[in-house]
């Protein structure tokens, strides 16, 4: 999604699976966003703000880099 040649990817789908198949709605409720936003983040259609990114990492109790990665194209 970035404009400088890089793009943000994430491991949210895998992390949800390892949390007893946590639903998108459950994650959305705990993060404080809508389910559609979690869906867009998971599908790499939207890069969340730092605040939301940290909140997602906190829900899974992992470091931010384990949830989001920045790759050069």
């Amino acid at each position, binding site marked *: 999604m970035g404009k400088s040649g890089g793009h943000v990817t994430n491991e949210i789908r895998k992390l949800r699976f390892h949390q007893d198949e946590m639903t998108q709605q459950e994650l959305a409720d705990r993060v*404080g966003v809508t389910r559609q*936003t979690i869906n867009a983040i998971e599908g790499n259609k*939207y890069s*969340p703000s730092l605040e939301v990114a940290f909140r997602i990492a906190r829900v899974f109790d992992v470091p931010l880099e384990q949830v989001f990665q920045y790759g050069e194209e």
Partner: protein
Amino acid sequence: MSMSFQEKSLWLMFIGLVGGFGFYFVRVLPSSTAQFMPYQVVFFVLAVVMLVVTQVVGHIIIALFDRSANTDERDRLIELKGTRNGAYVLATGVFLALCVALVTESNFIFTHVLLGFWVLAQLVEIGSQLFFYRWGA
């Protein structure tokens, strides 16, 4: 991916604008006159009433089936981007309407250039938001 309350609301507004002002332009533009006529104002009022009624009834129906009207940072970003795109079109329309006002004495043409671009700006704003919701902001 299912549609959020915001997306349904935007689709309703888009359809209402196309229907309401489509009806108005189809009825009024073919009978172009030099000055705005009273019967044309009636069509304008009808178009606005149609728009308001469809919005009120439509939103009640949407709210009955979808109560998750909460918004977050992505909704706000999409709204801002849509508003920006619509503003470009509206600014272009205002400039063109002023040009028209300089070269013609017809308030019919001036009014309809302005109104046409306002409707177009709204459609671009809403269309942009629908695009961003589907294909990423």
